[in-house]
């Protein structure tokens, strides 16, 4: 598994077509996951990221495998962008031993240290200071690794955001704070909870660069994260990047997003990150006409096969709950 994961990690780093494929793969898996839940095949809850694929993949493309990433319960996309396989993600969601952490965590809990993915955290904001800590390791050891926290717009209102970024700034840590502004925290639109238009403006409070980025454009995301990473690796400290994006599905499995104004989804869908990037690759001549659709069909089939395979995988035994409690 690990060599496959590393190869997938590398592909996204080096190949823009692979980035397109990965975005398609994420979308396909997330769609399949919502389907599994709808069918009642899975216990618990899930938080999918359709519409936000460009952020995950653009971030992953800009990072090295030795960099660390802290992300949230809405982590399937980020995990797969970094290299997790559909099996690992779906396996965890379905509670099977093939899951990323052996099926004892569920949808909110993925981890794969070989590609820098720290345990994903289900507590809003928690990853912000944790990423500062991972950056501290790089600074103390004198490596040029960076650490990244990916979190939502809603998380920008919690104390851990404030404390974690402030510490990273005062210690000039090689960290990048990436706010994935998908316009909603659960069922609340950002304007109901956040009194300013751009979370990037909060960088002022910490004396660090803050930038609004088009989160629907994987190239733009990639460029912004690369610049922030270069700055961090050079010892110039952290940055705050706000990726403007949109959550196509509801907050979690049970949410049909009735609170969304009519036409909002459609407006965002016009700039669907997969469609626009596919078109761009065609325009640039990197993909032939019609190839995006073919890739989509192929990748979706592969994902569906992976999901089918997971359905037949073993569940962890009783002993597993006693493992990894204390080292």
């Amino acid at each position, binding site marked *: 598994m690990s060599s496959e994961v590393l190869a997938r990690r590398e592909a996204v780093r080096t190949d823009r077509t692979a980035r397109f494929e990965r975005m398609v793969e994420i979308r396909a898996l997330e769609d399949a996951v919502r389907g599994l839940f709808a069918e009642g095949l*899975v*216990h*618990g*809850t899930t938080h999918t990221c359709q519409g936000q694929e460009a952020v995950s993949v653009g971030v992953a493309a800009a990072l090295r495998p030795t960099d660390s990433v802290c992300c949230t319960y809405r982590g399937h996309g980020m995990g797969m962008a970094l290299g997790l396989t559909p099996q690992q993600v779906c396996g965890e969601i379905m*509670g099977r031993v093939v899951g990323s952490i052996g*099926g*004892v*965590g*569920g*949808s*909110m*809990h993925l981890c794969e240290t070989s590609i820098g993915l720290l345990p994903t*955290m*289900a*507590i*809003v*904001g928690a990853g912000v200071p944790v990423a500062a800590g991972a950056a501290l390791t790089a600074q103390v050891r004198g490596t040029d690794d960076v650490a990244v926290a990916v979190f939502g717009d*809603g*998380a920008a*209102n*919690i*104390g*851990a955001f404030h404390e974690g970024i402030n510490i990273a700034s005062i210690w000039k840590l090689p960290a990048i704070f990436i706010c994935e502004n998908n316009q909603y*925290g*659960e*069922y*609340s639109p950002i304007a*109901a*909870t*956040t009194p300013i238009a751009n979370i990037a403006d909060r960088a002022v409070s910490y004396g660090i660069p803050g930038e609004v980025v088009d989160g629907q454009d994987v190239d733009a995301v990639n460029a912004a994260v690369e610049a922030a990473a270069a700055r961090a690796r050079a010892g110039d400290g952290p940055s705050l990047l706000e990726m403007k994006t949109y959550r196509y599905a509801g907050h979690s499995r049970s949410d049909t997003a009735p*609170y969304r104004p009519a036409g909002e989804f459609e407006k965002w869908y016009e700039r669907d990150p997969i469609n626009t990037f596919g078109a761009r690759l065609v325009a640039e001549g990197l993909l032939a006409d019609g190839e995006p659709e073919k890739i989509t069909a192929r990748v979706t089939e592969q994902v569906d096969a992976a999901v089918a395979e997971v359905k037949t995988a073993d*569940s*962890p*035994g*009783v*002993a*597993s*709950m*006693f493992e990894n*409690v204390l080292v």
Partner: protein
Amino acid sequence: MARMRMNQAIAAAIGDEMRENPDVVTFGEDVAVAGGPFKTSDGLLEEFGPLRVRDTPIAEMGFMGAAVGAAATGLRPVAEIMFVEFLGVALDQLVTEAAKFNYLSGGTVRVPMVMRASVGAGLGFGCQHSQVMESWMVGSPGLKIAVLSGPGNAYGLTRAAIRDDNPVAVLEPRILYAVRGDVTTGVEGIIPLGQAATLASGNDITLVSCGSTVRTCLAAAGEADGWTADVIDLQTLQPWDTEAVLSSVARTGRLAVVEECPYSGGWGADIVAKVVSEAFGDLSAPPMRITAPDVHVPFGKELEQRYLPSAEYVTAQVGELLATGESPPHWWERDGALV
């Protein structure tokens, strides 16, 4: 008397208090427009308006603090913590501020706030969203803690909590939100804090339960073969009804405390310690604790069910206690349990 789900009973309780007292307000994440993530405040925004029913940013320290300040100056806020684990980012306001303000004001400031939180396992939310964490609050002087076990006491305890002049934590087993039951509404439905309910009577053992383990104990007692039990629902965990437990144990001579949480640090230890100090002579068998193991709440339906004490397990443990006169090993201590 009305038949409703537990989440509806909670909304009804808050609504009835809001109707009677303009000082009652409620807020939390998605409490207003969405009617609560678990629909425990459904309809309140529509009836009472946005001044009294509010959505908050994701900022538990912020809005718990707001509850403290509002309560200290005359309102009766009901603040919702969506999953009790999130108190880990806000405990200070409840335990170190709210619970101490009366003392730190020479008795001049009251903090009649309610912190409601959903708790517990069984729904596949994974180990950061499935605990009860009453241990974060038990042992905090100045704080009361109520635990709901179904629609009936959900209504009565919630209203009592809102009326209480102390800060009160109300823990709501998430798995019971959808359970339907009969609810005595109106003032006569209010259940005084500090009083246990004895839900079944028997002779051989006292089963002390709370929250989600109440129905487990009732089912266990129902399935029992050859023994009968007093089943006590503590309802309030702090201060707990010592009198109800001691008088039952004086009669039955045996005690089993059934808890949802891990063995270490569980509230049941307090019950056992108190009973042995007050009623040692009455005991014909060692007081027993039936709990989850000292592990994280696992994901996966079977694992999670195994983690939680089941009615069958309670029946078996009690049976063994009665048969041997000794505290039986926990399931995870038995040979072959983990294979």
